[in-house]
């Protein structure tokens, strides 16, 4: 049986984003990193994305995940590699990769998927490419409905960033 005894030592979350762009994967950046790029002074150790679930996009995403040695993140030492059809359903797929942790979400709070969220994104310029990022207002609204205590703790910082952004 395979064993996953390696400790996570890599955290190059920017490289994960760059890799997704270069692999031409359609995704929306959500979660803590979406808050970071919009100016909230929080630190996050993973990348959270909501992916477009068309078969073509899933094939690109799967190929990219294989290229960064993605395996499911688990509390035990079992190594389970993703399969392409894992991404067509509504499940959250949480991975360890050689560039750091990556969470691939079919939906976020309130069951919102890629298409639902697209109207609530901003485009940011990153290494010469555009990334769709869930806007701070929507991010705050979703975190308010979250039962995750970490999300609740981050809310005041996100709200202050939004307030200062609105003030210009």
């Amino acid at each position, binding site marked *: 049986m395979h064993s996953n005894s390696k*400790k*996570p*030592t*890599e*955290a*190059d*979350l*920017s490289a994960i*984003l760059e890799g997704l762009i270069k692999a031409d994967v359609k995704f929306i950046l959500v979660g803590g*990193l979406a808050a*970071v*790029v*919009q*100016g*909230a*002074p929080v*630190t*996050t*150790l993973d990348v959270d994305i909501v992916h477009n679930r068309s078969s073509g996009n899933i094939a690109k995403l799967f190929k990219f995940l294989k290229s960064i040695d993605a395996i499911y993140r688990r509390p035990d030492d079992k190594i389970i590699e993703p399969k392409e059809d894992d991404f067509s359903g509504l499940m959250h797929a949480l991975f360890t990769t050689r560039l*750091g942790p990556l969470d691939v979400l079919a939906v976020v709070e309130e069951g919102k998927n890629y298409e639902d969220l697209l109207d609530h994104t901003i485009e*940011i*310029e*990153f*290494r010469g490419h555009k990334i769709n990022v869930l806007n701070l207002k929507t991010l705050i609204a979703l975190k308010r409905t979250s039962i995750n205590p970490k999300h609740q703790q981050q809310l*005041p*910082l996100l*709200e*202050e*960033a939004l307030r*200062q*952004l609105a003030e210009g």
Partner: protein
Amino acid sequence: MSEKTKTKNNSGVDKGLVAMFLKMSPEERLLANDNAARAILELRNAFEQQKTDRSGSKRNT
């Protein structure tokens, strides 16, 4: 009251820290987070290593 305390609002948010982060470009913010994440992982691993070393030396005594 110190200057640092004055910049915090009722929820304890450091407004100056938010303002400082907002002055950075999105790419600079991502790099700052990468650096912070690397430092956190390094410290966590050092802590884990220390625990392992301690339990190893206890067994040897």
